[in-house]
């Protein structure tokens, strides 16, 4: 019954969003069924569609986990966007600077750079909140902009590849991580799906173990559910805030591994397609649970991949339908009380915790 309740609201929210957007598509004069068929059909075709869908899901799993860990501690990290930018740049910097070292040293070094870069950028709002009580939401928004400006400066003035594109020099070939096409028969190597996807799945497992099977995770979650009780029980709430934001930032930072080591092999200014903000949607729709995060990251990745043929093969619908769908889904998930009313009448649902 509990599982059913956990699954029901996200499911209703997704279905409702598809219905609302379907009506919208109908109004502007296209066929919603045909549009959705194009969307899912292309995203779930083997091997190119699925390969790209899983590739798009990778950053969303990382940012979804990031938002989730902060959420479990009662914090809203809307700074994953800035954290992943800082991390990607740090990864590229290590990959450029130590280009000639052996892969056995260089790749771990690059990964550490991603985790540390994201972690530091996440820790800043954590420390600011713990020390001065300033709200993490505003600080993370400001740090997003700050990261973009700062990295654009470093890219433009210090590490830029000559040419019109705002991108850094390429990282050394020793820092490249393998694309999964090398191991999966039938998947062409041009698909950028890489080892970072496996890393994302492993991270889900690790986050689960950390949050629900260790003392530290318990302390973090207690802080989230009831900070005053946690403080009374001997847990330092301030410390938990800093820890949660650091882990959150580190997880968001791992997007840098996928982007820099597995895909573009350099830092590309403005590469993130709202991964940080979509991460909020992923975490919420996934009920702040690792399994839910994977599931909803896959859904959003399907939307992202499927938006491309929708853009090309319908008369009026553009790929912007994807963002409209995403926004509507989060809106419905956030305002689940909207659905609770009718359902409560059937005695099916009681209030469930986020």
């Amino acid at each position: 019954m509990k599982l059913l309740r956990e699954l029901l609201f996200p499911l209703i929210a997704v279905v409702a969003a598809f219905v609302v957007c379907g009506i919208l598509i109908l109004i502007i004069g296209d066929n919603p069924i045909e549009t959705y068929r194009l969307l899912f059909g292309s995203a779930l075709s083997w091997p190119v569609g699925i390969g790209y869908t899983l590739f798009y899901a990778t950053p969303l799993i990382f940012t979804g986990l990031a938002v989730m860990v902060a959420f479990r501690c009662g914090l809203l990290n809307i700074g994953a966007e800035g954290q992943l930018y800082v991390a990607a740049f740090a990864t590229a910097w290590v990959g450029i600077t130590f280009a000639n070292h052996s892969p056995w040293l260089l790749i771990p070094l690059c990964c550490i750079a991603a985790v540390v870069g994201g972690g530091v950028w996440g820790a800043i709002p954590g420390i600011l909140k713990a020390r001065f009580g300033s709200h993490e939401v505003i600080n993370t928004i400001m740090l997003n902009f700050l990261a973009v400006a700062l990295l654009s400066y470093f890219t433009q003035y210090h590490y830029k590849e000559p040419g019109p594109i705002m991108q850094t020099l390429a990282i050394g070939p020793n820092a490249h991580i393998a694309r999964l096409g090398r191991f999966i028969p039938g998947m062409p190597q041009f698909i950028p799906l890489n080892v970072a996807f496996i890393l994302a799945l492993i991270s889900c497992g690790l986050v689960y173990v950390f949050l629900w099977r260790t003392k530290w995770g318990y302390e973090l979650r207690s802080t989230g559910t009831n900070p005053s009780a946690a403080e009374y029980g001997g847990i330092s709430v301030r410390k938990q805030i800093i820890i949660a934001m650091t882990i959150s930032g580190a997880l968001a930072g791992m997007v840098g591994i996928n982007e820099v080591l597995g895909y573009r092999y350099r830092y590309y200014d403005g590469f993130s397609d709202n991964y940080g903000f979509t991460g909020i949607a992923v975490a919420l729709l996934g009920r702040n649970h690792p399994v839910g995060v994977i599931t909803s990251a896959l859904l959003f990745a399907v939307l992202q991949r499927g938006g491309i043929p929708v853009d090309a093969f319908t008369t009026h619908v553009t790929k912007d339908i994807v963002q409209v769908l995403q926004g509507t889904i989060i809106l419905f998930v956030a305002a689940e009380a909207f659905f609770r009313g009718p359902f409560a009448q059937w005695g099916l649902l009681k209030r469930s915790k986020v």
Partner: protein
Amino acid sequence: MWEILNVALIWSTIRLSTPLILAALGGLFSERSGVINIALEGMMLAGAFAAAAITYATGSPYVGLLAGMMAGMLIAAIHALACIRYQADQVVTGTAINILMLGMPAFLSGAFFLSSGSTPQIPKEHLIPWLPIFIAIVMVPLSWYVLYKTPFGLRLRSVGENPEAADAAGVPVARMRYAGVLLSGILAGLGGAYLSIGQSSLFTRNMTSGRGFIALAALIFGKWRPFQTLLACLLFGFTEAVSIQMQGVVKLPSGDDIPVQFIQMVPYILTIVVLAGFIGSSRPPRALGIPYQKER
């Protein structure tokens, strides 16, 4: 350094501050009533798109301006309904609206104008470059008067500070909060409309490029007060004007250009510093972000 301080820079500061002032005043009404409004960005985008589309269709910028305000209010109504009636998390709802509005105007442009996310060019004689600036300047003292000198303002502030007490005194908490959020939508929509039919001559995808968030920062930097918020908006508008004008003009003693990014960072750093309490304390309305549930 000083050769760039001229009339053009002052004029440019005023033009760049106008959308910030309108949106920040909008945020003021919403947040003073206790509802966090990070959806300012989305409301501005809605206003910018509606104003451009309607002005293009009707040829009247006044109708367009009105449409921009209505569109902002419509988005605000969604935010208000979710946050007040359905007690949704206000930050999450705001984020949802921002993502939605990143797509929706481009989606509608694509459908109606068969473009890739922008409206057609509006003829120069149908633009409205002055009126929004004038409204923005008038709105600052007016907002101050409404907030501090009228019963409406007192009630609005009271539901943002202590909704329980306000409720006990007979103030309709939910209704006041609806009013605050809807007002913020109208003002943010107007700010967005100025971007599309005042400063430029069409709507382009994501044309606010974060101005809603800057307005929010200005509101915090201005400590949730109208006149301080005006000063913050002017300061942020000034940094933007400088960063546009100074490229290649101002040199460091070493002979290099000052990177434009350093100027762009100023508003963000200032906001973080102020929020941490280094320059006087910036205290949000006490009930900000907390849904109010009437006891039964």
